[in-house]
């Protein structure tokens, strides 16, 4: 088999048969001697390691080396010096250069294709008299202009530099451009046009030139250049001042928001406050006035618009009536941003699954809630079908359970307190002399005022458990209720 493969190779004149044969060729001869016991290994040892010893096979196989680079053949390139003619030239100049002998001697000079003549417009005397008459420009001078434009390939700065029409009035760059482009426009407009109107309009638009605008622009550029160093310094200083004021304003606003949140709770209508706060706007107006006073041309400096754009306040858009109608029609339910998110940051709320945002019970009472749920035969952590209604119900349930557990805890505590107090009362009745002082002391040391208040309540209405539970819930867990409502409305 190996021999036949070699034959095929030699027939196909593939040079490196041994190297190309590779591992598949080498393995087979290596396997055959390994089946027999090699010389120099005792029979016992050989029977232990057996014929499948990989180390021996590896030793017997020839190491495979990287293929040697082919240095001998194929690297030779013949170069020769050849005369060539340049198709871009009008004369028959022959220069000599070195090229690979393999290149085609008849081929066109490769650089000739870069010789692109510019498109030029010419006009007849008749066309000139009909369309192109201008009291500023004679036909001769227009001809001259077109020649120069052609010669310098519409490089306008050069054209303006080299333009010197004898006995002509001195022309500005804008004069030249205006004349050239207006002539081109008129020619395109008045000549028969082969293509459609759109392409003609497009061509005309490439010849559009607004001289007045260009002149104004140049004037602005000049005035920008003619600022004195003091003016530039003042401008810089003002710019830095604006930045500083803006930063101060932002900081102030943030502080105020923090303060409001601390005082008035989480969603105390902060968006409204942001909206009616005209601070940054007022500042930019002020600085604008300042800048105007400083130097009039500063208004045109590029720094001004950027400063303005930065200070534009981010206004929160309230939902319009149209939006609400649209939402109702398409069953879109909008949820407010979570009140936990900082109101200053216009945080982007990514899409999320409703069930992910279900409230989690507090860690302290979580086991009790779990217990209560399991008593009801429910899973407290997972909803099988987390629709909006289900989620709301689940939340309500969770909330109720939390309230229940809390109430239970309070009740337990109060009962304990009652027991203690009863015990004390018993002691006081038995020992009336020291009772007063001891009672006061117990009260003062008896923990926070809230439990005290609760205990008073309990004293007032010890029977009415439900009512008391309600009141407890309503006073203390406003936070979690707010949270729920804001999460999924």
């Amino acid at each position: 088999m190996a021999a036949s493969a070699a034959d095929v190779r030699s027939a196909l004149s593939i040079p490196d048969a041994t190297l190309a044969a590779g591992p598949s060729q080498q393995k087979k001869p290596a396997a055959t001697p390994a089946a027999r016991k090699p010389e120099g290994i005792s029979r016992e040892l050989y029977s232990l390691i057996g014929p499948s010893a990989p180390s021996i096979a590896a030793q017997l196989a020839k190491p495979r080396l990287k293929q040697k680079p082919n240095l001998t053949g194929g690297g030779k390139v013949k170069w020769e010096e050849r005369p060539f003619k340049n198709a871009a030239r009008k004369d028959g100049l022959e220069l000599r250069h070195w090229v690979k002998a393999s290149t085609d001697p008849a081929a066109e000079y490769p650089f000739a294709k870069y010789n692109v003549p510019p498109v030029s417009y010419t006009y007849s005397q008749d066309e000139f008299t009909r369309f192109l008459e201008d009291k500023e420009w004679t036909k001769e001078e227009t001809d001259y202009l077109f020649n120069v434009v052609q010669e310098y390939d519409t490089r306008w700065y050069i054209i303006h530099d080299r333009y010197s029409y004898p006995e002509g009035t001195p022309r500005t760059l804008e004069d030249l451009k205006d004349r050239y482009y207006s002539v081109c426009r008129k020619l395109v407009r008045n000549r028969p046009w082969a293509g459609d109107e759109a392409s003609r309009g497009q061509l005309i638009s490439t010849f559009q030139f607004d001289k007045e605008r260009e002149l104004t622009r140049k004037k602005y550029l000049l005035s920008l250049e003619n600022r004195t160093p003091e003016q530039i310094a003042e401008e810089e200083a003002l710019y830095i001042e604006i930045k500083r004021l803006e930063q101060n304003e932002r900081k102030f606003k943030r502080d105020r928001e923090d303060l409001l949140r601390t005082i008035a709770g989480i969603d105390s209508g902060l968006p409204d406050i942001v909206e009616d706060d005209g601070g940054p706007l007022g500042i930019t107006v002020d600085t604008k006035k300042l800048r105007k006073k400083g130097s009039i041309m500063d208004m045109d400096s590029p720094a001004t618009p950027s400063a303005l754009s930065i200070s534009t306040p981010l206004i929160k858009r309230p939902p319009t009536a149209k939006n609400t109608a649209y939402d109702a029609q398409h069953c879109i339910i909008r949820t407010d941003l979570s009140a936990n998110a900082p109101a200053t940051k216009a945080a982007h709320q990514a899409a999320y699954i409703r069930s992910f945002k279900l409230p989690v019970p507090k860690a302290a009472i979580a086991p009790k809630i779990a217990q209560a749920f399991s008593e009801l035969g429910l899973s407290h952590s997972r909803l099988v079908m987390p629709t909006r209604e289900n989620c709301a119900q689940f939340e309500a349930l969770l909330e109720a359970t939390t309230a229940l557990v809390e109430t239970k805890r309070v009740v337990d505590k109060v009962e304990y307190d009652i027991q203690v107090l009863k015990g004390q009362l018993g002691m006081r009745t038995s020992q009336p002399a020291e009772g007063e002082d001891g009672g006061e002391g117990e009260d003062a040391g008896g923990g926070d005022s809230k439990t005290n208040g609760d205990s008073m309540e309990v004293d007032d209405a010890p029977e009415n458990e439900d009512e008391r539970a309600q009141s407890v819930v309503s006073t203390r867990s406003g936070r979690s209720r707010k949270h729920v409502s804001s999460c999924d409305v």
Partner: protein
Amino acid sequence: MVNYGGDEVSALVVDIGSSSLRAGYAGDDTPKAIIPTSYGYLPAPPDADISMLDVTEGKDPVNTPKFAKIYIGQNGPSIWREGMEIGNPVIDGLIQDFNPIPPLIEHALKEVMRCTPSEHPTLVTEPTWNTTANRERMAEIMFEEFNVPAFYIANTGVLNAFASGKGSALVIDVGQSMASVTPVVDGFVLRKGLVYTALPKLVHAHARHTLASPTQSRRAIELLPHQLISNKMPIEPGQSPRYTLREDRMQGTTESWRNWAEAREVDEWIQSVAGVLDQGWNDQYAASRPAKQYEFPTGYNTYFGADRFHVGEQFFWHSPQLASNPSLPKNIPALITESLRACDPELRQVLMGNVVLTGGGSLFSGFTDRLSTELSRTFPHVRCTKIHAPGNPVERRYGGWLGGSILASLGTFHQLWISKEEWQEHGKAIIGQRCK
């Protein structure tokens, strides 16, 4: 080959400046032949037979009627010869005397490069303020005397911009005799913005005056070249020199050779000692910089302190009493301002962002730093002023040649050559049409 746009046709590039003539093959990064433009000659006796005395071979005697013998190259003017005068064809950057030009070019191409000009297209450079007559004469010399197959004459301002890889640039070229500011846009010179003065000459004169006039601490310095001194003794700094003159040579030394040799001494002193402060003149700062020691060929040596910075100050600032003189060459900031004022306001920002500093004179110690200070001071509204100043002295001194080398090796350039055929057909007019 096509990738980088190069196609070498073994063109020659010849760049003639005030101090040296550079020649080499296009595509090289350094000229092969650099010879001084100054040449030594023995004046022809008025009634002698010129063709008999003219020993330089291959030269048309009609074009060199002035010289009995001409000495060119490294062993030309620098070797003392009895009665040898020194001439320089280039005055204020322009070739004023075309008689020695063919021998100079011939020496560079045939003696130094050992090539045959008739086989190579040749690109010659010209200063921006060159006259039409001059460039036509140059074309005539190349075509008629050297028989070049093709010729082109290119502007040094444009070539310097090309050498730094820019199509648009403000080229500040400080040479040996002229300082020029050339706005280049898209490979064309804006002629209205071109300004040039003989500022380096003023600096040179100032330096010479500084050396030749005595101060409180030192005596006036004799600027004797080493060729005229037979021996000297080593002495302490500031002591009067002890040397013996070569009395045998004093007799045969011509005035022009003496001038040339002294100018060389001054130039060497400028190159090794003189400098310019990078922040403008400040007595205290100048005094705080270390003094430099310099020894003259007479053996006299001394330390130069603040004096050496006064020399460079001439490039950038003229004292008010000097400035009232209307013939005073303008300083560099004034040149730049004048040049920019002539340009379109839109171009100014572009040009200031592409300042190319070139020429041997710009290698003056501290020149680049001072220039950037002056630019930011004079043009505070320009946001980014960028100075391109090659650090390699060869690139800085021979920027014009280097740009020519780049240009003449471009494949797209070969359509611009003026061929001999065109020259014969159209005559001198073709030069102005082709080389814009």
